[in-house]
């Protein structure tokens, strides 16, 4: 585990994950890809100092988070200027921006983020885990999962709720306990 990753290895390990992460906030895959390429470009410019970065995990997360916030802020401002955003779209962007602002990358240890999440998911009961994976990771609709597993949609949504409750506890370090300030 003490093996130091070189730049390409870091890129290969983090790029797809950070793109999926960013996409949750900026909504478009292209925008997410551009943001993460920019993040790695910054890392590349510091490539001589990569070994000195004690926590590449937290560093990449911080860069990605800040880039996403910049992107969303810009998009909201442009939308305001041109009145091109519907009320619901603008609100959604604001909540997305607010959510990622609350994301606490400082709590990330140098441990691989994937290992951490897998550990959390592994604590779920098997059925619950299966349903959660299908819904979140494969992006299936409740109805589709219900059809595949021959269960009712009600069971599916209950199981998802249980999974979320447990994961929230497992991953509580990155999630807000309370809101520091409120949106105007």
């Amino acid at each position, binding site marked *: 585990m003490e093996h130091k990753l070189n730049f390409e290895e870091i890129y290969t390990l983090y790029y797809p994950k950070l793109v999926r992460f960013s996409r949750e906030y900026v909504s478009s895959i292209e925008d997410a890809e551009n943001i993460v390429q920019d993040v790695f470009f910054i890392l590349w410019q510091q490539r001589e100092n990569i070994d000195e970065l004690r926590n590449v995990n937290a560093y990449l997360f911080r860069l990605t988070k800040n880039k996403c916030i910049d992107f969303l802020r810009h998009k909201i401002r442009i939308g305001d200027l041109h009145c091109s955003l519907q009320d619901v779209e603008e*609100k959604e962007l604001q909540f997305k921006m607010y959510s990622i602002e609350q994301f606490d990358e400082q709590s990330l240890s140098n441990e691989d983020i994937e290992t951490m999440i897998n550990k959390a998911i592994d604590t779920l009961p098997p059925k619950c885990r299966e349903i959660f994976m299908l819904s979140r990771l494969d992006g299936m609709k409740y109805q589709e999962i219900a059809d595949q597993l021959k269960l009712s949609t009600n069971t599916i949504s209950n199981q998802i709720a249980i999974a979320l409750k447990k994961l929230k506890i497992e991953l509580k370090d990155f*999630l807000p306990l309370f809101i520091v300030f409120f949106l105007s």
Partner: protein
Amino acid sequence: MIGVFFKLRRLNNMKRIMMDKRLTTYFSGLLSDTEKLRLFKDLEADEAIMVEFVSLQNLFSLSKMVGEKGDGAYAALKFSQFRFRTKKHQMRRMTLTLSKYAAVFLLLLGSYYMIDRFVFEKNKVHYTLIEVPVGQTRQLTLADGTKVLLGSNTSITVPDKFAKDQRLVELDGEALFTVVEDKSKPFIVKTSKYNIHVLGTKFNVYAYAKSNEFETSLIHGSVCIDDGQIDSKKIYLKPSEKAEMLGGNLVKAPMNMAEVSHMNDGVYTFDKETVGEVLERLERYYDVTFQVSNASLLASSFSGEFKSKDRMEDALTVIQQSYAFKYKRISENITEIY
């Protein structure tokens, strides 16, 4: 009282569960725009639901960090695009660095040119053209101390300051050089026909551009004559030798001091030379052209003297004492002899 509390708590729990359901539906992307708008209004009104929303949003985002099938290939494709970008960046940086150096270089070059051109303009060599009118002579001392006695109807181009490696003058006419010795800077007399290379020496040059004749007579020292071509034949003269044109070639011959004495005493002495040769000298001296119809006259031998102060008519009279001929001035520069 207690009942009311429990009822409230149950109601709160109910609300929570209801809210959880709405939120999970939202994150599954199944909420309509109007439902979304109502949810957002509730978020703004209730801090607890807001916390829930943010937790779920970030939880879902985190859950996306789990590796997926095809991540490797996806990352490889994107990495190649990324490499392209970094290479372009490096190229641009390199170009920028190079153009910086180029700019500095051009600036220095420009400054050097400007300084050279305007500040050290006095370093530039200026040439002076000295023309001696017909029938006169001029004594000239060059920058290195070399003395030049210029003959009639002669022009010389001299620099106000000699180059580092040579002392070059251009001559059209006749001149007697007394060159100051400087082994590091050969003295060169450039004429329309031959170049004469000198170290320290005294010699006479007869080389009018208009004339076919060329003659260099060495009084002392040594000179070398070539025609300015890279592989030209060189002729070296010893004192009391002269080099002259004979049938288009430059040949060596013994030198008679009387032939160059006119430069010092103004007396031209001819000893058994053809009238043709004498007339040729007079043409150069007076800057005229003789049209001679009497061919036998040209081949006849003539000995005699002229003074440099003589007019052209006086000179022709001296020849008429040996040979009978008449002459008529057709124009200022052309005289017919018959």
